[in-house]
């Protein structure tokens, strides 16, 4: 029966409305215990995680000012007027951050779905080609739905939105009071966030036929150009910024339909850049978020098209300074512009080119292409006649004006010592100033406090200009989902540990020490045969650096989901495919049921899949919800030092024995086990510290001795390379002599004997006494008593 209105014959005045018709569900897999979990459904799982990885709070602010009882001073873990304590208030703020992050993804997904259904119809099939049968692992896992068309995702979004409302309600004064329950809710929000990302990416892959496993997809995606120096400014340039691809896709369509691909440059910043190249590989990725302000100030864009998320709030003001009109395309970021969606395109173009308006709103993505392209083509010759980059004399004037007051340093989030670099530049040495270019996160805070009104960002950019012009790298186009066939090949080595880990390098560019860290982390792990997957800003920044032979990390490493691969998965919403890959290991390799079975799969991943997220420049609330979503699924994450400002970490304490108990599902025997993984969320101060930490967080209790030995080799080696000595806790991960790195077995056995008092049988090179648990290759670790197969008599 179809949805609609039914007129019953003979009863002309009676009309029966038929809403959702329960279609006969094809029994593709038995339904698990937790389809469409509510707030409390997975609370027990959360509490298991939170018991081992206790929330750690570092308040960013001692006060709460959310209601009129306040402001309340919560310092010293005091209670506010409503009774909430500082720790619970921190949990509340974490939930709020995850809410903001999750709604950004869910709102984006809903918006996209509206647009795509309108353009392609509800029945546009989700068909990712011959290598992908599990098309939507998170959707299957969390909701029990196996989507066949993009329209099927409406029900998934309905579920997400309902849950978001319930969770947000808990933020109100006088609702939740326990920090642990705030955290459980944050984990629930994080899970919804991961699901929303999957919906968004799946529908755009399906509708726009972005790379999947059809020919040319997966490891065969092309390379695209990345960097501020890649844009050919002899042509008109359209710069797209944000996360929602339909307007940019419409621009690409217009260029292709009119044969203008070689006449106009389409370039992007942030995730819209990723997604545009997935649709139109001629597009270029100018930069990640951290360079946004500078890319705009450089004036390379003849027209800027913004959609949603991570767009500078002062975009129109900035663009006006370089005579660049702005087209806003999304109701979430209107920037005060006038709605000209249904005006005659040529009239809109004329107003933009003549500068009668600083920008316009065009809310129908299918009407953006024509206006953007025509505007860029008509305004480009005018703009080329203007002077935008400062000349040498002006530069010298500014640097001489600086009197090293230090105000800019106090305003700079990275505390950059700008004044002393200015002083050097005044004597002719511009190198220190140029070096600040990559360390600067491009916020612009410094300029607002400079009493001499020095345009500091432009002065730094000018000093670095020769470098900026040369900034040209290559990244593989975002390839979207990992193939089921790839999982079949690597499932065993990942679970056994012989591929030492999957390193997920994700998120924003609020780095402590510049973009080079993104490259270094990628290269270090790929060279060691980890699988390195990247999304978002870090996927872009990793492409900016090169080896001695001038090759970037995407050029030196293959793009298969396999040992040593460097894989650009795509935009931020694409990182749902990283969750997806972990889930598929459980389903395809280990044959666990997915459907409505979140808890069991998360338990599987936590114990067996040596994956670790790295959000080295995590900045946004989305990064908070993304990390929290990874954590609930059993994937730990390392953040950079700015990540401490999220206020909360999930830290394990290896010294508390009771926190490290695990069950053997074969017979229910409980073991004390090594801290594997030790944390769910931890910040490192420097990249040198982070590298061994990332390797350490890839240990899993299920590692075989061969796998453990490889993981230990890298952990020890990275620690020695970057910290100059053996890690203090390496012995915790040794269960048997064969766990030790082969090349150093003897030396390490000796250390175990001398430094840790272990008993060694030197003749047989075996450990007799010392490890906290025995090694058993058939060990079947779980945290869930319900999974014990046969209780010991």
């Amino acid at each position, binding site marked *: 029966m179809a949805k609609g209105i039914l007129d019953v014959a003979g009863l002309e005045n009676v009309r029966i409305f038929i809403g959702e018709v329960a279609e006969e569900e094809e029994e593709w897999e038995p339904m698990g215990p937790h389809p469409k979990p509510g707030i409390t459904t997975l609370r027990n799982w959360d509490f298991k995680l939170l018991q081992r990885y206790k929330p750690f709070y570092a308040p960013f602010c001692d006060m709460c000012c959310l209601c009129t009882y306040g402001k309340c001073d919560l310092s010293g873990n005091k209670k506010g007027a409503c009774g909430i304590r500082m720790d619970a208030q921190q949990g509340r703020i974490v939930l709020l951050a995850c809410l903001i992050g999750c709604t950004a993804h869910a709102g984006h997904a809903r918006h996209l779905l509206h647009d795509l259904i309108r353009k392609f119809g509800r029945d546009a099939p989700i068909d990712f080609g011959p290598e992908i049968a599990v098309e939507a692992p998170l959707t299957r896992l969390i909701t029990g739905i196996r989507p066949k068309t993009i329209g099927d995702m409406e029900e998934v979004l309905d579920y997400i939105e309902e849950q978001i409302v319930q969770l947000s309600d808990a933020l109100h004064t006088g609702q939740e009071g326990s920090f642990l329950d705030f955290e459980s809710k944050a984990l629930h929000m994080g899970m919804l966030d991961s699901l929303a990302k999957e919906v968004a990416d799946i529908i755009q892959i399906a509708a726009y036929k972005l790379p999947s496993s059809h020919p040319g997809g997966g490891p065969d995606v092309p390379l695209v150009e990345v960097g501020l120096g890649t844009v050919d400014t002899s042509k008109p340039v359209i710069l797209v910024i944000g996360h929602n691809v339909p307007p940019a896709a419409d621009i690409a369509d217009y260029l292709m339909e009119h044969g203008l691909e070689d006449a106009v440059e389409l370039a992007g910043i942030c995730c819209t850049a990723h997604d545009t190249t997935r649709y139109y590989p001629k597009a270029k990725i100018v930069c990640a978020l951290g360079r946004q302000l500078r890319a705009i100030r450089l004036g390379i864009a003849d027209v800027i098209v913004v959609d949603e998320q991570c767009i500078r709030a002062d975009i129109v003001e900035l663009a006006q300074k370089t005579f660049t009109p702005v087209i806003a395309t999304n109701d979430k970021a209107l920037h005060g512009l006038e709605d000209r969606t249904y005006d005659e395109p040529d009239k809109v173009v004329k107003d933009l080119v003549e500068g009668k308006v600083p920008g316009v709103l065009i809310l129908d993505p299918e009407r953006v292409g024509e206006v953007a392209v025509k505007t860029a083509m008509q305004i480009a010759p005018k703009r080329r006649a203007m002077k935008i980059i400062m000349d040498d004399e002006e530069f010298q004037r500014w640097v001489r004006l600086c009197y090293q007051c230090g105000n800019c340093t106090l305003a700079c989030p990275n505390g950059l010592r700008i004044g002393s670099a200015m002083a050097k530049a005044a004597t002719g040495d511009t190198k220190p100033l140029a070096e600040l270019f990559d360390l600067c996160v491009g916020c612009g805070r410094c300029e607002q406090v400079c009493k001499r009104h020095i345009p500091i960002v432009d002065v730094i950019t000018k000093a670095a200009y020769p470098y900026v012009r040369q900034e040209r790298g290559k990244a593989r186009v975002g390839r979207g989902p990992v193939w089921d066939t790839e999982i079949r090949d690597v499932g065993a080595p990942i679970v056994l540990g012989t591929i030492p880990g999957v390193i997920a390098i994700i998120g924003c560019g609020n780095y402590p020490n510049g973009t080079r860290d993104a490259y270094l982390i990628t290269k270090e792990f790929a060279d060691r045969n980890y699988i390195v997957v990247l999304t978002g800003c870090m996927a872009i920044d990793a492409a900016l650096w090169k080896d001695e032979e001038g090759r970037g990390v995407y050029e030196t490493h293959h793009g298969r989901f396999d040992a040593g691969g460097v894989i650009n998965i795509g935009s931020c919403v694409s990182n749902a495919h990283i969750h997806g890959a972990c889930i598929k290991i459980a389903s395809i390799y280990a044959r666990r049921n997915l459907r409505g079975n979140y808890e069991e799969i998360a338990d599987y991943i936590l114990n067996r899949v040596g994956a670790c997220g790295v959000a080295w420049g995590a900045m946004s609330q989305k990064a908070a919800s993304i990390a929290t979503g990874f954590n609930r699924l059993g994937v730990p994450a390392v953040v950079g030092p700015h990540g401490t400002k999220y206020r909360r970490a999930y830290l394990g304490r290896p010294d508390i024995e009771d926190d490290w108990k695990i069950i053997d599902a074969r017979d229910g025997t409980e073991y004390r086990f090594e801290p594997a993984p030790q944390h769910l969320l931890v910040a490192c*101060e420097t990249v040198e510290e982070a590298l061994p930490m990332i390797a350490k967080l890839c240990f899993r209790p299920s590692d075989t001795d061969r796998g453990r030995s490889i993981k230990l080799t890298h952990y020890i080696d990275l620690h020695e390379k970057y910290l100059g000595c053996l890690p203090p806790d390496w012995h915790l991960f040794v269960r048997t002599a064969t766990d030790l790195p082969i090349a150093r077995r003897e030396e390490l056995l000796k250390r175990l004997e001398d430094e840790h008092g272990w008993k060694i049988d030197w003749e047989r090179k075996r450990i007799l006494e010392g490890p906290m648990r025995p090694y058993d290759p058939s060990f079947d670790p779980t945290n869930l008593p319900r999974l014990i197969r046969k209780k010991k008599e």
Partner: protein
Amino acid sequence: MACEPFDIANVPGPAALGVVATPEAMASVVSSARRPLLVVGSEILRDDFYLDVAIEIGRKGIPIAATGHSIKGFVQKGYTDNVHIINLHELTNCLRDPEWRGLDGGGSYDVVIFFGILYYYASQMLSCIRNFCVRPLMRAISIDRYFHPNAAMSFPNFRPKDEDKYKEMLKKFVENIRR
């Protein structure tokens, strides 16, 4: 005396003491501490002078928690006696637990000295200590070149050109520690 936070908007709230103290006053707090701990970060590696200051404090019997990748410097100098490698998040997490056995098994600490740590990471950890290490009270002091409102005592901000003045203050601090 108060001062501008190094990161100007980092104003935590009414209870943040943010006292700028003399090196002598800080040294006297350390001298009378039951169990002090020196926590160093990667910034001590920017100049041998700072590493030597840390080692000198270590030689006065104060254990050192080497966070970030600061351990590298101690290894190069051949001084690792009472130096313990630990991540700063991990360490602060332990500090907030009064039952913690400490880095050497002797129990937790009553005074922690932050030195050579990236400003904003240190600030967040100092905030945790100030807000949650209250029973028993733990005092955190910073001997970095930044004013830290989350520390019970700290130095003022130093500009690069005042590096020598800062070094003088560090010397005074070390000289005045009596253990």
